Structures are given as structure tokens and as C-alpha cells.
């Protein structure tokens, strides 16, 4: 098996690095996945005024805190990218783990929120609003988990001063995860 990078990977006709270009296309393909869920949700929502009564039971405060947590973690990964550009691996490592901490905080708050809702009978089967609520937020949470795992793997490389450019790549992905939440929060929590 070839361990050396092929010439293909090192060429850059567009002027953009291969990794960055690929991450952009990954994000492009993800936009349409969330787009499909959210477009379906919005079409239903427009036809069913009654969903606002269901939405009244969501925990807006928890959602707002989570928005703040995710946005802050996005700032951390930007600082991490900046540190990686300056070859400050220690600082980059620290900021990556602060971002991961943000992801974990987000998930812990989410877990409290959901267990509270489920114990009050608002399960995924309660009504179609809750089906969408858990499906859309669940798919998003899966992205948060995957992002955190990838950041953990990248942090190990960063500590060995390897593949520093990957901090920027995961940063792009993390901003995307963040932006999806910025759509989910008003649609699922605030619209009442």
C-alpha cells in the first residue's frame, strides 16, 4: 500500500488546498440533508397552527444557553486555528479541547432537557411536532458528537506537531454544525 501522498493531493489548480475544498463539498452535501428535514418541518408547520401549543413546552432557556455554548466553542476553534497557523501547538491543543468541552456541555444540557421532556410525556411519539423536534435535533446532536471525536483525534496529531492544517478543516465543519443549530433553535424553540 502506498503510504506516500500521491501527486494529485499536492496539486492545487484552484488555489484552495485539497482538504479545504473537500470539506466545503462535505458541508454542501450536509446542507441539503438538513435542508430536507427543515423544509419538510416548515411545510407541516405552516399547515398546522396547533403545533405552536406543542412548541410552547420546549425549554427556550436551555436552548438559548446551548446557542451561547456552541457559539463560544466556535470562537475557541477559531483561536485554535490561529494558534495552529502560528505553530503554537500547545495553545492550539488547549483551544481544541476547550471546543470539545463546549460540545460536551451542549450535549449534557441537551440530555437534561430531553430527559425532562420525556418524563413529562413529550416523547418522540407524542405528536408529529415532537417527532420532528427529536429527529432534527438528534441528527444535529450526532454531528456534534462526530465533530467532538474528530477534534479529539486531531488534537493528538497537533500535540505531535503533525497535520496542523486540519485544525482549520475541523473548524469549518464546526462552524457549519453551529449554523445548523442557529436555524434549529428559532424553528423548534422560539416559533410559538
Amino acid at each position, binding site marked *: 500500500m502506498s503510504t506516500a501522498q500521491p501527486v494529485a493531493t499536492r*496539486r492545487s489548480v484552484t488555489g484552495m488546498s485539497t482538504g479545504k475544498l473537500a470539506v466545503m463539498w462535505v458541508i454542501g452535501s450536509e446542507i441539503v440533508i438538513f435542508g430536507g428535514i427543515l423544509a419538510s418541518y416548515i411545510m407541516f408547520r405552516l399547515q398546522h397552527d396547533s403545533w405552536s401549543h406543542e412548541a410552547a413546552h420546549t425549554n427556550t432557556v436551555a436552548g438559548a444557553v446551548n446557542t451561547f455554548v456552541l457559539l463560544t466553542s466556535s470562537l475557541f476553534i477559531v483561536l485554535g486555528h490561529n494558534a495552529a497557523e502560528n505553530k503554537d501547538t500547545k495553545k492550539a491543543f488547549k483551544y481544541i479541547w476547550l471546543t470539545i468541552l463546549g460540545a460536551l456541555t451542549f450535549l449534557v444540557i441537551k440530555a437534561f432537557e430531553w430527559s425532562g421532556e420525556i418524563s413529562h410525556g413529550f416523547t418522540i411519539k407524542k405528536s408529529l411536532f415532537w*417527532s420532528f423536534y427529536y429527529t432534527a435535533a438528534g441528527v444535529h446532536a450526532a454531528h456534534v458528537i462526530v465533530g467532538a471525536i474528530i477534534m479529539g483525534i486531531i488534537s493528538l496529531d497537533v500535540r505531535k506537531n503533525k497535520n496542523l492544517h486540519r485544525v482549520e478543516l475541523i473548524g469549518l465543519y464546526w462552524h457549519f454544525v453551529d449554523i445548523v443549530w442557529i436555524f434549529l433553535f428559532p424553528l423548534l424553540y422560539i416559533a410559538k
Partner: protein
Amino acid sequence: MTIDHAHDTHHHEEGFFKKYFWSTDHKMIAKQYLFTGMFMGLMGGFFAYALRMQQAFPGKTVPLYGVVTPTLYNALATNHGTIMIFWFAMPVLIAAFGNYLIPLMIGVDDMVFPRINRLSYQVFLLSAIVLIASFFVPGGAFGGAWTAYPPLSANANYNLTPWGASLWLVAVALEFVAFLLGGINFITTFMNSRAPGMKMFDIPMVLWTIIIASILFMASVGPLIAGAIMLLFDQTMSIGFFDPAKGGDPVLWQHLFWFFGHPEVYVVLLPAMGIVAEVITVFARKKLFGYKTVFYTMVGTGALSFVVWAHHQFIAGIDPRMANLFTITTVLISIPIAEMCFVYIATLYKASIEFSTAMLFALAFLAEFFIGGVTGIFLGASGSDIYFHDTYFVVAHFHYTFVPIAIIGVMAGLYFWYPKMFGRMMDEKLGKIHFWGTVISFNCIFIPLFYTGAAGDQRRIYNYQNFPHTNTEFLSDLRTFATISMVSMLLFQIPFLYNFFVSMKKGKVAGKNPWKSNTLEWVADSPPPHGNFKELPEVYRPPYEYSVPGRAQDYWPQNEKA
């Protein structure tokens, strides 16, 4: 070029497993996709054989298969469609040709992400295994049609395949993952790794078609992935996204499915069109008529293909005003496709045509696809579709589009690039037997089916003897004739398979450029070694400079300096 020379091309021997199952070489991955696709295609063909035999001779034991029960009939029809689209047309047209041709034609050593490429094939193989496994679970394989409309697909009480339905969905989802991984790799390689000097309009048309197809796939499959998650929840937790009793809407699935499903037609059509462009220019020894016209037409077709999907739903209770809009867009999209066909015909004008097997298949593609396109207009117009919907007229129509794409187009490509892939020529005489046998049989299958459909044969019917208006001697004769032609078409694949496998060892040695073609893949050895080129080429001119006046040779390779 300085950095390219640093590349090390030494070839080291690998073990059997590493070479055939764990390779990161784009050519090996292309062959993996090709052979898996061919195997699945034969399986899909065999399913079609069993279900057509049941139609011609209802209730009789099918030779080599056995008795086709009603449940089995549904499972065979469903999986015939699913396999032919997702496990035959896509892997062969996009993954096999894309993987093989992209790095070679842009003059580079491999894909930008070789290991992701390997992962893409492994996920694809897993998806095929999951699909095949669904035939061996309690209840059997899913039988709710390849479109998987709920409530039939969502509720095991209706489809009676509690395991099969979910496994089918998982297999399709895995296949999408494989093609997203592959597609991102294709597009990134195409954008970033072209040979020095290769400008936008120096790129061979087949690469444009594969790349535009990959982008279309990527942009359209997302909503269906979302829909698949929702359908899986409906199946496993009985949520009711698509269940009106629980506030859901079954038509939502149809929108999500066809928003993907119609662009998907162009995802497979465009690469076939690209293959035909390469074959026609080489065997007509002429420049492609209107390269830029074809390019812009393709972009236009791609954009338009996103706004035609509801023509599949004219009788699903959608608003008739919306049906009008979709009729207009559907009829509009026939313009760019017709234009592309005319451009190819214009390329043939005053050309010195060589009727090699590849060229015959390419020309047959144009003729047969034309019939598919023209009959599509009756289905795109909402008024006539109400009558034709869900009849064999529809079945005949889309087979007249998909068979030219996935069989005739693929064969044009295989006969053309075989010398590059395996270093030897295929036998032309056997090739011509294969060609005429396949094309004549194909027409004999589906022309009668246009008639049976117009006469009232609905799709997905187990036994037409059960309905007075379809239980006539004439219709029954037509069905039997179609079935016999179908068996004949399958049998005519034997000369092809023989030719394909025997020529690998016994064919005439091909040399680097047997067809005297211009594009970069013919600069490399046949078959190209690991790393493809001894010295990575540079590009000086567009790909179709054939019969340029004042030159001794009638071709002018892209990498030749002057």
C-alpha cells in the same frame, strides 16, 4: 513540473488480499466497482427473467428459478429496479468509469484521497451485501417497489416484510454514503489536480459529465437521506411522519423521493452522454461539434432537472395548478437533451466513420434514447399521464431511457476503454454479434410493452389473467413475445462475457493508443502501472483536435507540444 518529478513510481509486489481488496489505486477501485456492478447487473437481469416468465406463463415453474409466488414477485420487481439503478447503473457509469478515467484523463497519478476512495468501495460492497442479505431474513426481501411509497413501505402490517423493508432502506442509505464519499473525491480531484495547461475547455467531455452528475447527486440526495431517516423511524418506532392517522403525509415521501429521483435520471444519463461523445469523436475522426454548447446545455439540464420532479405525482392528489407548472418544466427539459443529441449527429456530418463495436453502441445509444425521450413527452404532459400512469407504457418508456444509458452506453465505454484497462483488444466479431443481438432483442422486448400498456396493462400485476380487459389472447401473445426477447437479450450477453474474460489473456496486445485518440489516458501504458505516467503530462490543446488540416496525422494528442 518540478514537484511532479519528485514522485516515486517504483512498483512493489503486493499480496493477493492487498492487491485486490485493500488497494488504494484508483484503477483497481474502478475495476472493483466494475465487477461488483456487473455481478449485480446480472443478478438484476436474472430477477427480470423470473418475473417476466411469470407474466408470460403465470403460475408455471420457471426454469432455473422455481415457482414465483405473489410475495416473491413483488420482491423481485422491487429489487430488480433498485439493483439496476443503485447497484448497476451508478457504480458502473459513475464509480467505475469515474474512478478509472478522472486521474488518467486529467494527467495525474491517483485520486486526491486514495484511502477515502477505498472506503467508498468498501461501504458500497457492504451495501450490496446488506441488500442481498434481505432475501434471507424472515418475511423475505422488501416488495413495496423501488420507490418505496408509504404507507406500504412504512408499516410491516401492509408490506409483510418487517426485516426486508428496513434492510432495503439501510442498504440504499449505505450506497448513498459510498457515492457521497466517492463524489467528493471526484469533484475535488477534478478541480484541484488537473495537469498543467489543462484549462476549463480542454477537459474531455466525459469528465464534465461525470463531475456534473456527481454534483447533481450530491445536491439532490440530501432530502432523500432526511426522508430515509424519517421512514426508518416510521418503520421501527411507528412514528408516523408519513402516516395521515398520526398527522403525517404520505405525499411528503413522494416529494422527497422524486426530488432526488428525477435528478438521478440525469446523474446516470450524463456520464453515458459523455462516453458517447468520446467514442463518436474518435471513430468519426472529427472535432466535437459545439463543445461549449454541450457544456452549457449540460449545466442547464442539471439546473432544470431540480424542478421537474412532481411529474411523477400527477395522480397523487397534487394541486392541478402545480401539475401545470411541472408539465411546462418537464417538456422544457427535453429541449437541451434533444440539442445534445443533435450536436452528436452534427459531429457525424461529413465524417469518416469507422463502425467499430464501440461506435455501433454509441450510435445505437442516440437512436434508442431518442425513442425514450419522445415517449416521455406523453408522460410529462399531465393530461395524457393520467391515462398512462402506472401502466406498462411507463415501464417501456423508462426502459427506453435506462437501457440505452446503463447497457448500451456502458458497452460503448467498455469496448472503447477495454484496451486501456486490460492492455488487450476485444474481439470485434464477437462484439458485433453481441451488439446486434442485444439491440434487436431490446427493441423486441419493449415495443410490444408500449402497446400492452396503452391497452391497459397496469404495472406490478402478478397475473393478468385475473382481469377481463387484460386477459386477451393478443395481449398475452405480446407479453410472451417480450419475455422470449428478454431471454434472448440475456443470452446475447454470453458472447460478451466470453469476449470480456477471454480477451484479457488471449486478445491482441493493444499498445498505448490503439484508437489513435487525443486524450491523456492514451499516453499512459496499457494497462497503466501504479502511478499511471512515467512522466506526468502537460496539456497544450483541447481534446478533440481530429483531422486538423495541414497535419500529417489525423489526430493531435493533448500533450504533444506542437
